[in-house]
């Protein structure tokens, strides 16, 4: 990965610093609805999004969470949020000990160059997170919307 890629790549996110980081209020609120008063710690979550996107309409996103996924220690849910989309929530998935691994791959929409955050809820009630910044380019030749 180039130096620029590393700069734009994954960085750790402390929810406690959210306001200081300039995270939009709607995104903070959406995260609050999921974690309540819990502390969100950076780590254990790996969020893979290409740093430069061909088209913001279909952006591949892969999340994986370190967890043995046993009946006593597993990932309960994973939630993805964006910073600059009209709505902060992207997806919430609910897993369990039968999942085998805590992974999810999907495609999302990104309205603009921005930061994406994934938060995992563990069976012990703890929350872990990862964030990634991506650059979104727009198509040059469009069509009128009918």
């Amino acid at each position, binding site marked *: 990965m180039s130096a620029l890629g590393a700069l734009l790549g994954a960085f750790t996110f402390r929810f406690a610093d959210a306001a200081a980081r300039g995270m939009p209020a709607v995104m903070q609120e959406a995260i609050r609805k999921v974690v309540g008063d819990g502390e969100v710690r950076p780590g254990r979550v790996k969020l893979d999004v290409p740093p430069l996107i*061909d*088209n913001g*309409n279909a952006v*591949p996103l892969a999340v994986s969470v370190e967890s043995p996924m046993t009946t006593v220690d597993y990932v309960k849910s994973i939630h993805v949020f964006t910073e600059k989309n009209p709505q902060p929530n992207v997806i919430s998935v609910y897993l369990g000990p039968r999942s085998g691994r805590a992974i999810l791959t999907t495609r999302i929409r990104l309205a603009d160059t921005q930061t994406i955050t994934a938060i995992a809820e563990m069976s012990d009630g703890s929350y872990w997170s990862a964030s990634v910044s991506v650059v979104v380019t727009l198509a040059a*030749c469009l*069509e009128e919307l009918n």
Partner: protein
Amino acid sequence: MLSVAAAAFAHGAEGLDTRRSGYEFMSAETRAMQDDDLLNPAMLWVLDGEALWRQKAGTNQSACADCHGDAAGSMKGVAARYPAWDDRARRPINLQQRINACRVSRQGAEPFADESREVLALLAYVGRQSRGMPIEIAVDARVEPFLKSGRELFFRRQGQLNLACTQCHDEYSGKKLAGIPIPQAHPTGYPIYRLEWQSVGSLQRRLRNCMNGIRAQPYAYGAPEFVDLELYLLWRARGMKVETPAVRP
């Protein structure tokens, strides 16, 4: 003559083919979308096309399969040679026009509307049967004038921006426009799933986007100018492999 001019474009100084598919200008992730049938949304249209192939329609209550049998056999190589001369139309026609001619004359059904889900599904299904095969456009004395017309359209400046296709797609291909590399405009994978449309669409739909881009009044769907231009573009891409159904940004 036309053939010499084409040779001059296609081959570099040492006779190397410098033509590159739009595939090569995409990110690795978008290429992966095209290569994996489980990730390529156009496969949803291919499945619809497969169902339509077997569906009886029209006053004759016949299905494509009734005449053409298994598409994997009968349609192999077909999409790779369109647009092609049609005796009834007395000019080259594209695959959509060929399908609609069958709809009307063989099935006794209404032709599919432009960009309808049904016609795109059939085009994706039939086109897929040629995937991996080289594009081959047969040019004889009958086809020559239409090919020449298509070539003239490709080189004609149009629109408020007064640009011709050749300026972006020959002279500036590989360079960036609004942050994105300009491809060479070889329509190897149509109908495509265009990420910008979030849907499958035809080559004519994409050409209309281009014409909007240069602020020109787009030709109507099915206009002879479009079919002539399609003929020229596919001939210009001859020998390149069919990628249908492709994914493009």
